[in-house]
């Protein structure tokens, strides 16, 4: 039961659901029991964490999951200082939660210039650029064109770009596939001849 719950959340069905109405309205807030950032106890900062707020070592702060339309099993209550992991190590590991969890996908947002809402795809599903581009073409019903190192994407109005971990916007296809999927944070399919060609200069 718990396993399918986790899987469904990772599929992120709500995000890809087609609805009438403006994007952003009628958002169902999905409170998960995933470790909130408030639990990273930075010793130097006076941030009150779930743990240190209740100074007693045995007082439990419950953290109940709240999934839309389902009766969720209650999440495990947090106990102060347990498991016995040093604050330093907890802080180092926290930010990684969304990255390489076994079984979870590597979901990134995809925007297309002119489209009313974004989509999300799991990069882990694809093994190469041609596969990815084909899927994008399929999803958005458009043609992306041929990649060339010198000229970027030729033959259409669309050019796939991505934002890397440094915040820079790059043309999809320049770096080896493995490097791409570890640095890609989101995708944007740009439209408009001048801009798209601009990448090829």
């Amino acid at each position, binding site marked *: 039961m718990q396993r399918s719950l986790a899987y469904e959340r990772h599929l992120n069905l709500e995000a890809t659901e087609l609805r009438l109405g403006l994007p952003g309205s009628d958002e169902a807030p999905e409170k998960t029991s995933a470790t909130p950032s408030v639990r990273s106890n930075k010793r130097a900062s006076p941030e009150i964490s779930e743990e*240190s707020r209740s100074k007693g070592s045995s007082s439990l702060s419950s953290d109940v999951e709240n999934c839309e339309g389902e009766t969720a099993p209650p999440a495990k209550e947090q106990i102060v200082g347990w498991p016995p992991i040093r604050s330093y190590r907890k802080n180092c590991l926290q930010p990684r939660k969304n990255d390489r969890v076994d079984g979870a996908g590597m979901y990134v947002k995809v925007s297309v210039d002119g489209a009313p809402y974004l989509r999300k795809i799991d990069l882990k599903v694809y093994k190469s650029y041609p596969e990815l581009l084909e899927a994008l073409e399929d999803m958005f019903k458009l043609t992306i064109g041929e990649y060339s190192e010198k000229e970027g994407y030729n033959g259409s109005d669309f050019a796939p770009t991505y934002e890397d971990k440094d915040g820079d916007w790059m043309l999809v296809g320049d770096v080896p596939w493995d490097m791409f999927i570890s640095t890609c944070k989101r995708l944007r399919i740009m439209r408009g001849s001048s801009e798209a060609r601009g990448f090829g200069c």
Partner: protein
Amino acid sequence: MGPNPKMRKEFFDSTRSSPFPDEVLERVLSLLKSHKDRSAVSLVCKDWYNAESWSRAHVFIGNCYSVSPEIVARRFPRVKSVTLKGKPRFSDFNLVPENWGADVHPWLVVFAAKYPFLEELRLKRMAVSDESLEFLAINFPNFKVLSLLSCDGFSTDGLAAIATHCKNLTQLDIHENGIDDKSGSWLSCFPENFTSLEVLNFANLNTDVNFDALERLVSRCKSLKVLKASKSISLEHLQRLLVCAPQLIELGTGSLMPELTACQYAQLENAFNQLKNLSTLSGLWEASAPYLPVLYPACTNLTFLNLSYAFLQSHELESLLCQCPHLRRLWVLDTVGDKGLEAVGSNCPLLEELRVFPADPFDEEVIHGVTEAGFLAVSYGCRRLHYVLYFCRQMTNAAVATIVQNCPDFTHFRLCIMNPGQPDYVTNEPMDEAFGAVVRTCTKLQRLSVSGLLTDLTFEYIGQYAKNLETLSVAFAGSSDRGMQCMLEGCPKLRKLEIRDCPFGNAALLSGLEKYESMRSLWMSACNVTMNGCRLLAREMPRLNVEVMKDDGSDDSQADKVYVYRSVVGPRRDAPPCVLTLSGL
């Protein structure tokens, strides 16, 4: 060499208990390094006590409140190196308020007067301020070694003071502290003519340092043996540093985030190829499959591999382990799974220490991690294993019994079944027999951490068999006072006992009256001890400090957190309001 008049006089002095003149005795005793040996030596007679005191260069103080700096300086006049530990270990897990104490400053003030030529200071769980670091930097012209582990209260400004003023610094080891990481400019404070550094560990810090300054520093410090960089150092930077320092013995990489061109990758591979002497490798943040092979050439002589910040899968670990035939110590995350641990068993016959940390300790829906199967696999392949720290979500009595049969030489056995009070998941029985097997089989056991569902029987076993046990950690275990009584009555070498969330009350606490004076400390939190019990203890044992911390909103009579330790200086005077010191005097 002419006759030594002093020697002749003492040879005929019949009141001397020792036939050796002081100089010879001191010379001989100065060869003793272990402080346990030195303590024993100092008890022989007054002459030996004096000679030992004069020849002691390094003093180790396991609890900063057990003694005062004045007493230390009076007894040991020629100390060059000090190791000082402060807060109780459970402060690592946020069970101790931040202003609890263990301030290093009063120590530094005395040292400045009595040990102006102090060279080394190693601190663990002490409160250290920037002001203290600056004081240290300015008042000790010969200062060489600074090591800060699990300390807090300082910022990178303090490090800047050290870099600026310590002209003879050889080691700067900043490790797992709660630092206020303001900026990386401290590193640029090392003067351009400063060349003595041998150890630099700044893995703790995240703010960017001036890379050019770092590169110049590494280039000119020809004796640099240990370099542990922070996450802010990229692969490109790493390559340049390695080129400057192929003589490194220990390396902590920065981020392994893949971002190199093919040409840069080749250069990095080459740089690792030059590291012929590497015995320790750590860091490896954001390590991923494409870049692990770049490390391979440097792995041939590795004895310690710390992958505890690298989210590796089992096959990635296996490929790496194949490159490390001499591995003795391995730290990993449980993302490698049981399969990864099978690879450890198959590839690391010389392994002596294994630590498996949880990648997602708080996520209850996580299905992966490691189980008893992984631990078993390691025990079959690594018969020399003697130190283990293992975080898991399930365990069985049978598995542990087999494990210790395979590896009977455990000195440190720290098993953390992460769900408190969890039984053997196959038989549904308590885990008593598991730890019974551990203490019966592992006669050299010095340190033990227990977990899972445990009754008093576990503690009967421990008391009966764990004759060499010095450190014991207990959580969410036991059925009655008897459990704690067994521990206190049974373990003759017990020095540190830390207990949390167990049903032990006053009777248990008071059963150890005489014992506590032979121990460093006792910690009990969220047990059934009351203020009256603590007051009684304090009254009966005036040479113990009994400190109580109360939780907000708890009953007046409850002693929520109790810390008891022996001391020759009586109750401390720097306790914050939240710490009640109960004194028998």
